[in-house]
């Protein structure tokens, strides 16, 4: 399981996290991706990075499906406290509460936070 917890662009963690997810998916690992905290901003619609000189990558999340990464989860509290709803996001993700995500975490062999 990969946990994305940083906003995009301000640090490289989310971008390099996504690179890791794509490679691991290519190795046919059963992956899930969870967005917690500022990680939810990675999925926000309408990002335009042309003015900051950094390559945008929000659309890459749409490609995850093509790599068979279908288990995308988002923490309901993180979303709500940022004034966002699932409609504000570039991909379909399953909105879960913390206990549900906690139970998923407990099932994992490996968890990597980015």
């Amino acid at each position, binding site marked *: 399981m990969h946990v994305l*917890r940083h906003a995009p662009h301000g640090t490289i963690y989310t971008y390099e996290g996504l690179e890791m997810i794509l490679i691991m998916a290519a190795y046919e690992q059963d992956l899930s991706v969870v967005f*917690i*905290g500022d990680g939810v901003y990675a999925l926000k619609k309408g990002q335009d990075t042309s003015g900051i000189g950094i390559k945008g990558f929000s659309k890459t999340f749409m490609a995850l499906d093509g790599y068979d990464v279908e288990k995308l989860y988002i923490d309901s*509290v993180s979303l709500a406290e940022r004034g966002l709803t699932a409609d504000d996001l570039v991909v379909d993700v399953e909105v879960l509460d*913390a*206990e549900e*995500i*906690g*139970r998923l*975490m*407990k099932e*994992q*062999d*490996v*968890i990597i*936070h980015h």
Partner: protein
Amino acid sequence: MLHTINKSPFEKNTFETCIRFVLPGDPLLFIEDGVYAVQSGNRFSPAIKRVLETNPVFALGPDLDARGITALSEGVESVDYDGFVALVEEHQVNSWF
């Protein structure tokens, strides 16, 4: 599942975020600047006390020593790197930054 936390709760919300996802019985281990959370009598002591009702809480001793922390919230256990390894023997690891 072992949850490690390495951020001071005064600077980052790592501890507050982490505990929302921790299941009862899962041990917490504070390391690096995370250990400031378990100094007794601080703003986070009540939260640590609540966690202790359902979960064991550890702090890495060398990190406590390095930061001059001697008074721990009651119930928090100090472990050395060997103790860290022992917790990893028992549990998969979820490292929160």
